[in-house]
């Protein structure tokens, strides 16, 4: 098993991003050690997707610094794409093409040799349970299967870092289990993973490091055990972002009394 070392592969300092008047990220700091399984959790609109997009070189940060294996994504986004595999929140697949054609196209653009690509696609299909879906147009595939195809696309070039934005969203329990096992195996091989998710029990099982993001700010961060401090992740999460508002009185809501 690869042990998490002290070498930092991803470092973020003072990262800020606004969309008009909305502050999506407000000077956040992150440090992801090599081989870590880093989970980024937070309520809806906390800034998780924006963070992943900036780290992937899809969006530009407006202030602060990002270093990804020494590379600044805003200065050299093409180099970053070689180092990182990304499963974004949207599914960037060509719907009319089959899953296999999508994977072949992406591998071709990455410059992978054809034979090697065919071999890797077969392996990934087996690992992700995609064998039956490979030759179907993406249009016909379920949301969960499309996620798995996108994950396969992100892994094709064997990058040292994987960014996964909500990989378990819309996934059935069996597929979630397949992905979970695959991610655990990748970590065993020394791949550094950064994941955003709302599925807290899964995060608790997989993550080695954790950051809780709230309203664009880091509410808590560090190794999982330190952040949890003996609590469950749900308890730590609620403590960091605050208790939900008390349920309002919905006395008007009675079956058949909606008119």
């Amino acid at each position, binding site marked *: 098993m690869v042990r998490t070392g002290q070498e930092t592969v991803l470092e973020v300092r003072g990262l800020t991003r606004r969309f008009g008047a909305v502050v999506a990220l407000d000077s956040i700091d992150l440090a992801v050690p090599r081989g870590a399984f880093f989970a980024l959790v937070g309520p809806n609109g906390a800034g998780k997707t924006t963070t992943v997009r900036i780290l992937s070189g*899809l969006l530009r940060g407006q202030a602060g610094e990002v270093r990804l294996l020494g590379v600044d994504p805003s200065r050299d986004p093409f180099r970053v794409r070689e180092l990182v595999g990304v499963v974004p929140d949207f599914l960037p697949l060509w719907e*009319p093409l089959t899953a296999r054609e999508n994977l072949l196209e992406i591998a071709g653009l990455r410059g992978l040799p054809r034979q090697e690509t065919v071999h890797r696609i077969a392996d990934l299909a087996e690992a992700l349970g995609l064998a039956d879906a490979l030759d179907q*147009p993406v249009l016909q595939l379920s949301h969960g299967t499309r996620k798995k195809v996108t994950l396969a696309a992100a892994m094709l070039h064997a990058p040292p870092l994987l960014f996964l934005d909500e990989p378990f969203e819309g996934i059935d329990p069996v597929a979630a289990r397949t992905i979970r096992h695959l991610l655990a195996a990748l970590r065993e091989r020394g791949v550094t993973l950064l994941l955003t998710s709302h599925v807290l029990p899964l995060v608790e099982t997989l993550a080695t490091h954790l950051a809780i993001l709230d309203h664009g700010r880091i509410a808590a961060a560090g190794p999982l055990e330190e952040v949890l401090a003996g609590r469950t992740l749900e308890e730590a999460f609620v403590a960091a972002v605050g208790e939900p508002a008390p349920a309002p009185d919905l006395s008007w809501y009675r079956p058949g009394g909606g008119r």
Partner: protein
Amino acid sequence: MTRSGRLVLLAVRLALARWRLAWQRRHGPAGMLLGGVGTLFAWLLLAGGAIAFAAVGTTLFAVLARRGDTGLAVAVAGAVADAAAVLAVLAVAAAEETHRGIPPRPLLLLPVGPGDRLLAETASLLLAEPLAAVAWPAALVPVLGAGQVASRAALLLALPAAGLLLFLAALGLAVRRLLLAGGRHRLATAILSTGIVFAAPAAWLLGSWREATNLLRLEGGPWTPGWWIRHACREALAGHGAALLPGGILLLVAFGLLVLAARGGDHPAIPGAGRPRRPPRKFPLATAWWAARPVVAQWMGNGAAALLVLLAAHVLARQGIPWPALPRVAGGLAGLILASAPAPLFANLLGTGSRGVLGLLLAGARPGRLLARLALAAAVPAVVLVPAVTGIAAWLLPATGAALVLAAGTVGALGLGAGTGLLLSVAWPVRADLDVPGASLWPVGPTRWIMVAVQGLALVPFLWGAAIPGAVLAVTVGCLAVLGGWHLAGRVLHGRVLDVTESLLT
């Protein structure tokens, strides 16, 4: 129909559905009934224009028939058939955009029932085919007029009258079905609609130009549906058995349209029915054909239009028009039409199907490689179409230089379009979804005019003739433009890939 037009229609539908639901909430079952009746009334009000047109048309034909002016009545019948052929296509095309341009997702959240669907469908028919409603009374004219003529002529008139009636009915049905159908039928529609829309007015103008009095007699040129009707009716009124031939041909055409309509799918996208899923398509060739669907449809439509231009020039040339430059002008125009087929995609290579392109950008594709791949995919049909149209030009307009102008002009315009489009697409990417059938592929802004103006430059070398040097110059300029544009666009994209992804994501 413009985007704002589609939005207005969608807003009207939403408002009506909400109004009906509000009645239902306030007044229970009685409100539901009243709301349903009110919605029907509102739709009928919207369709009132069409009904009024039909009434006016019928009155006009009845008056003509009573006056016994069979000559004018027959001419009007022919003219109406031609107008119906052109405008029915346009009207139904607009209806298709209304249906498919915006997925009626908001309506999916409302409890829209089968009754609403039926009403929406009926309203669509009434709104979309007013021309068919206007046109069918024209079929009565020869029958009514037959009372004024000899019994043999009356008998002979039955065939063209039946042909006209069937033709108009079949036209409305066939075009509507074709336009609402998916997949390969939509490709056929692109060709048919382009053909009909361009052919009928062109034939009309040609016929009128040949003999100025044709315009006064409301007569168009040869080979339009109206021409067949007039020809058949006149032969019949003269008591000639020759009326059977054009009448029979008209019947055959109508029968063909009916068969086409029967084979075409009929899956209109109506509120509540959800957005029809495009049938999956497996690409038989390289995966670089990612953009095949819109590109091929665009190429085929423009190819049909280019052929019509050549055909018109051929007819004019045979009439001995004293304009030596006519074949060259026609060749250049046809070339420009052909080369403009991939122009909208060239101008927005990165924005078209933005999610897929984002995937390719995420895959770390090198800018030059990515742009070349996308541009080649958009231009691939040219390999087949340009030689084919050039060959037809050489056959229709032999020894006039038209084929040379067409071939070289197309290559030059394609090169200029690709070079300029590559630069525009990296400088100004606009998110455009390929999955919205019928939506315009053009990005917003002045790109359309820039592309038309730049592609038109390819014809400048031919202003002074169709000589070889002009062709060489046009092709050379095109090649230089595409190489320069590609090189420069690659460098620009490398420097501003983040700006591109930002504009596609935010």
